[in-house]
Each structure stands twice: as structure tokens, then as C-alpha cells.
């Protein structure tokens, strides 16, 4: 168990491509951190640098009190779970789980005890003599978890471990992984492109885009106060509405088509107003009128897709309220988020 510190970590490939711009953050002991972002944002590169599978171009990485930039992956006392499980196909489940221990000189009896213990925890005891090819996707995933657990590592690394599973199993494993990490109290870094996984599993989320950290915060912070239009659009489903508006001399932002709200001092010129679909409600005399074209039935809510003066907007309506296409009047429930239209940063 250990804290992890990244100090201006940077990754530049030999061809000059900067995959990760200098990034710094601390992960306290026992925290579950999720790195989330679209593909190619540098999240996997960052994880692989922490694992020691990629060289760190610049900066210092510490696990515990030790700078590990030049330490072999095998000596970092980490365990990694890969997207395609990366089990050794020629070894039984028991051998797969014990291989790392064997190479550290752990005694046979001790290995057997630890493997049995982990297998018990993951409900794998009856599968210990099987080979990976004889297991289902979910079972392989659990073996990969078991292989990580038996090593009793300082740090768990997860590289999109659930993306090869079907939706139902994914939900189940999401909870299992989270519960296991809580129980063991081991620091964990989890990479995913799925914002639902990030929101549900993380103590803290790190949102990455184009090799840059956009925001670090708890799921609530990220959802309630997105630092940029990127975070606002990426986190949350359905995504936040972003409406173009211009600020007048009196400090009010006007959206074309009839919405005017107070904005924080300092906001001038063109801005983007961020409004989550659930922060709008139907009202007879509302703040804005939209023209609804499509209604999506999602069970718990209905999603109305419409336009306001040519800009797309979506609104979540609880299932017990009637809704129809055509002209609809809406009211704002909260103060909208305000972003600079040029930089995309929060104002």
C-alpha cells in the first residue's frame, strides 16, 4: 500500500509526438483513481509509464517514498490487469496466479496458500486446474484479478479491464472490483473511456484530453462543476447542452431565441452556456421556447430533442409528465455553467 506521486511526467515518442504533456498529481494511499478520456488522450500511456512498460521522457514518478523511473516493472511491486486479461495460455489458473510469486522466491506452500485464498475470494476454487481457454470471459477476468491480488501489491493498475465483457457482466464486475479494492485497501489506478465506469467507481476522476489533464476531482465535483466544455460534454449521459450566447454591458448572457441569464463578473463577449438536460423542466411560462422534433423513450425519463434558433438542445422529462413534439416552453432549474467560447474554460 502506498501513495503515488507524479511530478511533471511527460511522454514524447521518438517521432516527436507528445502523448502526455507534463502532468502532476498525487494519489493518496488507498484511493481509487480513474483516468478517463477519449481514445488517444494519453490515459493508457500514462498508466503504462506508471507500470514501467513505457519509458518516462521527463519528470519523476514515485510509488511510496521511492522514485521508480528506472526501476524494473517487476520490482515496482505493482499488479496490472489488462484489457484482454493477458493470461498465460499454457498455464493452469493456479499457475497463472502463482507465477509472479514463484519468481520472487516465495515458497511453494506459501504460494499454494495465497492462491487458494485469492481463489476463495473470487469464487475460482473449482477452476484452479483449468486452462484459460476453458474459461468464460468473466472467469478469465476474475483470474486476472486473482493474479493481481496474490502479489499483495502496493498499487493496482487496471487498463480498461471490462471493455471485453458484455453489458450485464460489466455492471457486475464493476461492483466486484470496487468492493475488492475497498476490502484490500490497495491504491488503484483505473483507465477507461467509459464515463459511467469513471463516475461509479472512482474516489477521484482525472479527465484527460489530447495528452492534457482537463480536470481532477471527485465524481460529484466533475459533474457539478466541469472545468471546461470538454469535461462538460464528456462526463454525463445524455451530455450537457452547450448554447452559444453573448454577454451584454449589464452582465447578462443572451441566447438567440430568448434566454437571458446573469453571468459571473468578468465574462464578456461570446460565451457558451452549459445546461444539463435534467436541469430544464416543462413550464407554462418559461425562460425559453424550443421546437421539439424527436422524443426518445428511456424508461425512467424521456429525452426531448429540439432546437432553439438553430442550436441543438435536449431536455430530460420525468416519465410521469406528458410531452409532445412541437413548440414547448421550458424553465431553468439552476444557474447555467458559463464557459469562454474561445478557450472552452469555465468562467
Amino acid at each position, binding site marked *: 500500500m502506498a501513495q503515488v506521486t507524479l511530478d511533471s511526467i511527460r511522454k514524447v515518442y521518438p517521432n516527436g509526438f507528445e502523448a502526455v504533456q507534463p502532468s502532476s498529481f498525487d494519489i493518496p494511499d488507498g484511493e481509487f483513481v480513474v483516468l478517463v478520456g477519449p481514445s488517444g488522450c494519453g490515459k493508457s500511456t500514462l498508466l503504462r509509464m506508471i507500470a*514501467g512498460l513505457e519509458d518516462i521522457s521527463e519528470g519523476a514518478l514515485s510509488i511510496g517514498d521511492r522514485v521508480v523511473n528506472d526501476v524494473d*516493472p*517487476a520490482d515496482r511491486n505493482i499488479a496490472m490487469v489488462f484489457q484482454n486479461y493477458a*493470461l*498465460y*495460455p*499454457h498455464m493452469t489458473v493456479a499457475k497463472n496466479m502463482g507465477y509472479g510469486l514463484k519468481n520472487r522466491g516465495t515458497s511453494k506452500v506459501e504460494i499454494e496458500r495465497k492462491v487458494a485464498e485469492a481463489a476463495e475470494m473470487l469464487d475460482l476454487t473449482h477452476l484452479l486446474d483449468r486452462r484459460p*481457454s476453458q474459461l468464460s470471459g468473466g472467469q478469465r477476468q476474475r483470474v486476472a484479478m486473482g493474479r493481481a491480488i496474490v502479489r499483495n501489491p502496493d498499487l493496482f493498475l487496471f487498463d480498461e479491464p471490462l471493455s471485453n465483457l458484455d453489458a450485464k457482466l460489466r455492471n457486475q464486475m464493476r461492483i466486484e472490483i470496487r468492493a475488492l479494492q475497498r476490502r484490500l485497501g490497495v491504491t488503484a489506478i483505473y483507465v477507461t473511456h467509459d464515463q459511467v465506469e469513471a463516475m461509479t467507481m472512482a474516489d477521484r476522476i482525472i479527465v484527460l484530453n489530447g495528452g492534457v489533464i482537463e480536470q481532477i476531482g471527485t465524481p460529484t465535483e466533475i459533474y457539478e462543476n466541469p472545468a471546461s466544455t470538454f469535461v462538460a460534454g464528456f462526463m454525463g449521459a445524455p451530455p450537457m447542452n452547450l448554447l452559444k450566447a453573448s454577454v451584454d454591458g449589464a452582465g447578462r448572457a443572451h441566447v438567440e431565441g430568448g434566454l437571458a441569464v446573469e453571468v459571473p463578473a468578468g465574462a464578456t463577449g461570446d460565451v457558451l452556456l452549459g445546461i444539463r438536460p435534467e436541469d430544464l423542466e416543462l413550464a407554462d411560462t418559461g425562460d425559453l421556447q424550443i421546437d421539439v422534433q424527436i422524443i426518445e423513450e428511456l424508461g425512467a425519463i424521456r429525452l426531448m430533442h429540439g432546437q432553439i434558433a438553430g442550436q441543438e438542445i435536449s431536455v430530460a422529462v420525468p416519465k410521469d409528465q406528458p410531452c409532445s413534439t412541437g413548440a414547448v416552453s421550458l424553465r431553468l432549474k439552476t444557474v447555467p455553467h458559463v464557459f469562454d467560447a474561445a478557450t472552452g474554460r469555465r468562467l
Partner: protein
Amino acid sequence: MKWLPILLLLPQLLIIAIFFYWPAAHAVQSSFYLQDPFGFGSTFVGWENYADLFGSAEYRKVAWFTVIFTLLVTFLSLAIALLLAVKADNVLHGAKTYRTLLMWVYAVAPPVAGFIGLIMFDQTFGPLTRLFGQFGWDFVLGVNFNDTAFAMVLVSVWKQVPVNFIFFLSGLQSIPRSVREAALIDNRSGMSRFWDITFPLLAPTGFFLLITNITYALFDTFGVVDTLVKGEPGNNPMTLVYKVYVDGFRGNDLGGSSAQSVILMVLVLALTVFQFRLVERRIHYT
């Protein structure tokens, strides 16, 4: 409709029958006869041809040489190719160039390879003969038994390494990257990672190459042997296959030569069964 599958298989069956079963049956038949060298007739002699072979010290010597030759050529071809493939696999850039360069050697026909060996080991201007001379080794190809055997092994191995290399390299590259990375986290020693993870995962490729290489060393080296002994076996080493040719077509002993090829057939059959029964059971195809 019942006849359609048979009709479609017929061309292939005909080819097998004409070029394999028919000659094989002929060989079995003539191995029980003593042929007149001028082709005027033949006499049934039963097992006598076989008895002669097993009683012959020369045949045992050739068989013994063939065993050693096959083991050496197979082992060296596989080992050298594996070493090169592992090294080339670490170098991602330019791997294609290596592959192409090495592939050229594979395109060389065995007699041509033998001929290149002939030049390299030439008594007066051969660069390898001169090199060995520097170290005080008076290399005499075609006269000294051991020197000739050495040249045969060297040329045969040189000829076979490229094809093994290609297979090993593609085998290595088909091992998932994440499996190797998982091993990197589980094991700090590169050597033991190779034996624990890479080598077992390469086993299907290795097994296939083992069989093809043994077959190569036993049969396809004919051209190399023929060129290096310059068609004059004399005291020179030769393989069983070459002896079939020498006895049958140079010595006109068709019966004895047929008996030899029947023995070879049985040998290869036994070897293949043995390999599939014993070796393949330990291999896990993923």
C-alpha cells in the same frame, strides 16, 4: 449426388495414387527381387535384400552418419534460427529488411547451395578453406571424411536457417503483447521469461518446424550431398537417401536400393507417429 464428392476428390486422389502409392508399391515389390543389371529379368529372393542390408557394415555406417547428420542439422538450424528471431524480434525497426534479406537464402535450391559450398571450400581459392588454413586446419573437401561431413552440415544448416527464422519470427510476433507485458511485471529475469512464457507459446511453431526440419535433413539435403561429394561417394560421408540413389542408379542394384527406400519409408512413418504421439501432447494450441 453420391458420386459428386468422389468426383471432386478424384484429381487429388489420382495424383497421390500415381506419384506416391504406385511407386511405393513398386518399391515394396522390387525389394523382394534380384534384378538383372541389364534389365533382362528378375528373380524372387524373399527377404534376402533386407538381410543383406542389415548384415552390411557399410549400411550401418551410413545409417549412423545419417542419424548424427539429421540431429545436428535439425538442432543447429532450429537453434540458430530461434536465436536470430528472438534478437530480430526485439528490433522492431528494420525487421522487414532482415526478413527479406534472410528470405533470399531460402530461395536458393539445395544443389546451388551445395555448389556455393563447393566454391567456399575449394582446395585452392575457397575463402573458408583459407580461413581454416590460418588456424592450422588443413581442410580437404571430398577427401577427408570429417571435413566433408562438416561442410555438408554447414551448408545444409545455412540453407535451412532462413525458413526457420521466418516461422519463428512470425510465431514470436503472434504472442500477444499484453501477455509479454504481464510477464514483464511477474518476472524480472529475461532469460527465465523466455523459457517460461515465450518458449512454450512458440511450441506449436517449433513442433511444426521440428518435423519439417527432420524431413529436410533426411531427404532434401540430397542436392547438397550430391554436389559436395561431386558424384563420387568413395570414402565420403553420405546419407541414407543418397545411398539409395548410389546403389540403385550407379550400382544398378535395384532390389537392394528398393529395400533401402522401404526401410526409409517405415522409418519416417514411425518417426512421425512418435512425434505426434509424444511431442504434440505437450503442446497447447491457444
